[in-house]
């Protein structure tokens, strides 16, 4: 399998704090990769670097063979990377459906001119946006709430909306930052199935998650960070037996 995303000696510091240090990491196309590690290890920071919110102090990010270090977030999204946020960032006063439609922004092209004229091309485009958005909502089970304002959803519903919004972009690579947080086991189960389905459609997924059962069940490979450094990498079963990972993160073997 070809490598889709590659981090090369990626380092980022905040003042005196080195949040991520010399990280080398690869995500293969079509796989589900996971990034785990203790709180404050630098996982979200890695996401922020990949999506262009932070510029790394050192090192390089390559996506589909293209160097994307330092590109603006919107440019990176257009290349096919979509994400969710650990601290939910929805468009709170917009409807659930509009949230998802905005997620599809980068897959459409209508501008002011199109808005004013609504020529057939635009009508078609709008129709596709609506269809795809609805099907993304359907996937996360929020169809019934499509006209609700996003702010009125409960925490777990908001998380799922975030996923739908990211999916609407039809990304090549989907970054999920703790998607299962705030969900109960049954909901997690559904979510897991959902992620597997998404992968099935050819989307590569990189996951940050603290629920080990979840991670171990669906990941193809796992990278472990601690204090910004990579301490292990491999298949779930390899990683969960790794003594370094156990002392730093798991505390005990999980099964």
């Amino acid at each position: 399998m070809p490598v889709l995303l590659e981090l090369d000696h990626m380092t980022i510091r905040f003042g005196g704090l080195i949040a991520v240090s010399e990280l080398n990491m690869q995500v293969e196309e079509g796989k589900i990769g996971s990034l785990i590690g203790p709180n404050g290890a630098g996982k979200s920071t890695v996401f922020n670097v990949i999506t262009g919110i932070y510029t790394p102090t050192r090192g390089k990010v390559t996506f589909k063979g293209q160097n994307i270090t330092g590109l603006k977030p919107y440019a990176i999204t257009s290349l096919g990377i979509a994400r969710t946020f650990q601290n939910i960032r929805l468009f709170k006063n917009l409807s659930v459906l509009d949230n998802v439609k905005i997620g599809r922004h980068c897959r459409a092209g209508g501008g002011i001119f199109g808005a004013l004229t609504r020529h057939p091309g635009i009508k078609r485009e709008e129709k596709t946006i609506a269809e795809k958005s609805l099907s993304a909502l359907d996937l996360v089970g929020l169809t019934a709430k499509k006209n609700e304002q996003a702010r009125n959803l409960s925490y777990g519903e908001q998380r799922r909306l975030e996923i739908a919004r990211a999916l609407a972009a039809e990304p090549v690579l989907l970054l999920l930052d703790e998607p299962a947080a705030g969900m109960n086991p049954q909901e997690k189960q559904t979510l897991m199935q959902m992620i597997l389905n998404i992968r099935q459609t050819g989307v590569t997924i990189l996951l940050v998650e603290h629920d080990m059962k979840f991670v171990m069940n669906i990941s193809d490979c796992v990278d472990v960070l601690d204090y910004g450094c990579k301490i292990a990498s491999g298949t779930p079963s390899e990683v969960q037996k790794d003594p370094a990972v156990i002392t730093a993160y798991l505390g005990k073997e999980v099964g």
Partner: protein
Amino acid sequence: MEGVLSILTNPYYNQVLTMMGIFLIAALGLHLITGVTGQFSFGHAAFLSIGAYSSALMTIYLHTPFFLNMLVGGLLAALFGILLGIPSMRLTGDYLGITTLGFGEIVRIVFINTKITGGAMGLGGIPKETNIAIVYILVVLTVFSLYRIQNSRFGRALAAIREDEIAAETMGINVYWYKIKAFAVGTFFAGVSGALFAHMMQYLNPSDFGFSRSFDILNFVVLGGLGSIPGTILGTAVLSLAPEFLRFVKEYRMLIYGALMILMMIFRPYGLLGNVDLVRVFRSLRSRGAGKGTVSGDS
């Protein structure tokens, strides 16, 4: 019917309504910038003045047709809107607000100091081209355009920026570029409105475009209901007619006007039509009506 006719023929009503229409166009422009995109702009009057002076000068010196001058006025205002949009790349919220306010004042002072605009003495001799028909045709066009813009990919992107810039950017929206576009479109309408104003008043003075004018227009947008086109229309109507209706209270007028602003905000914190989904209201009214009228209801 007679009432409508008398409004059109009575020069006073005509005047008041025309003025209202002119400011409505400007307010709708600001609605796009502030209501939809969420960018504070406290210097909208500056763009009116740019449109007003440029189109007046073109009429006076180049004798070009009014519609061309109005268009140029709009475009010129948009050009400055873009210029002002550029700092908005780095500034947010109140910082942007105060910058636009400063920009507005600077523009006014520049006009005071320019010869060709008559400086503080003002610019007279502008032919009267504006009339109520032209104004309301343009109002309709503006409403139509804004309605379409708001319900499009472009409009949704602007709303996303208002809600959360970082998230918007992560959705692939080039936030800076879109903000600039919003400024350009919004200030274009201000420029057009300014051109209409110039050819209505026939005499321009920089003091017509001070910050109190900017805040008036902002009032229209906020009191009507941020982000809502019908709200902006209602806000403009109420606030431009209020001073006229309040004329009888004489010197207490501004006292009442100020109190009215406070009360309206307190009782409708999201504006008169903020949080009212007109489409839903309309639909429910219609479906109720349909339910009454037909026995074998279809959908």
